């Protein structure tokens, strides 16, 4: 019965795919790049023109420079959701530091200890190279946030608190990340006020009406002005934010189990 349903499903999927393929025979796509895409590809890494972001990664240039304000509000939506979930479990969890049990078997624990620095390294690499390769602050932060989840499953939530990863420290990290994003957004505006020239909020490189720009590279390493700082602070804020949510959920469970 299940198999027949599955075969019917596959036939329907293939039929729809065939229909779309046959239908698209009559739509001849344009071979040229659209004008908006052309603008982004031309200006993303081009020191000779105005409106450049000085980043070879066009996606990060669009996300944090060309439409940076949108990304700022996306980030604030994520933090509002997090604040909401923290408010839900408030009073349901306390941080207790005693180790409950020994976790899973010694093989799993040893493998976790070996892979832990690797996960951090991969996350930091994705986050800090966001202006050079695919990836960015959110991607790197969520990769790093996988580690506390694995540690909670393999050891326990109390083990994480015992190692110094407490809720108050995580909230401090998250707040520092948010403050960093805010300061980076208005850094050039404040510099413009101090120097007496005009500058925009969320400005990265020099614009026609505002001729000051963020440093393109530090010591020969390309940082693309604000993009590297945005990715760095976003990475810390996202990793800490996800970890708070797990810790709160897991702690709430242990407290409920104790009450029973």
């Amino acid at each position, binding site marked *: 019965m299940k198999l027949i349903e599955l075969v019917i499903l596959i036939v329907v999927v293939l039929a729809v795919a065939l229909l779309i393929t046959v239908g698209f025979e009559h739509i001849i796509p344009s071979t040229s790049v659209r004008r908006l895409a052309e603008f982004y590809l031309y200006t993303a890494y081009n020191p000779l023109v105005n409106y450049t972001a000085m980043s070879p990664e066009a996606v990060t240039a669009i996300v944090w420079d060309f439409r940076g304000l949108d990304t700022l509000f996306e980030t604030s939506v994520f933090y509002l959701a997090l604040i909401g979930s923290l408010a839900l479990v408030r009073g349901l969890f306390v941080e207790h530091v005693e180790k409950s049990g020994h976790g899973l078997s010694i093989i799993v624990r040893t493998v976790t200890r070996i892979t832990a620095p690797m996960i951090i390294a991969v996350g930091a690499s994705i986050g800090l190279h966001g202006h050079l390769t695919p990836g960015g602050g959110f991607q790197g932060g969520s990769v790093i946030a*996988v580690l506390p989840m694995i540690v909670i499953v393999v050891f326990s939530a109390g083990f994480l608190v015992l190692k110094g990863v407490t809720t108050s420290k995580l909230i401090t990290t998250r707040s520092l990340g948010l403050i960093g994003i805010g300061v980076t957004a208005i850094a050039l505006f404040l510099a413009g006020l101090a120097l007496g020239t005009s500058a925009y909020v969320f400005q990265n490189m020099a614009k026609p009406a505002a001729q000051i720009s963020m440093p393109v590279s530090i010591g020969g390493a390309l940082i693309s002005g604000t993009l590297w700082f945005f990715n760095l602070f976003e990475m810390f804020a996202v990793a800490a934010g996800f970890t708070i949510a797990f810790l709160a959920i897991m702690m709430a469970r242990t407290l409920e189990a104790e009450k029973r």
Partner: protein
Amino acid sequence: MVPGETGVYLLMAIMSLLSAIAVYMAIRERDLVRAVIYSALQSGLYAILYFLLLAPDIGLVYIPVAVGLIPGVLLVLISKTERWERE
């Protein structure tokens, strides 16, 4: 031997079909833990699809969030409620 571009399209077709099957299994499964694993499998196949469709940025979000974080949270929620879906 198939030429490179055709091979990529073929791989995409196989991934899409497998993800459709995984979705069906996730919906029909009465054991919620296994349903979560099928859902994670579908997300992993989608991550490969995003990579093949030249959107590695989305793929990099998809792998940790949809394969690591969301199944983890769902498993915690299942452990707090019931494992078996009722009629």
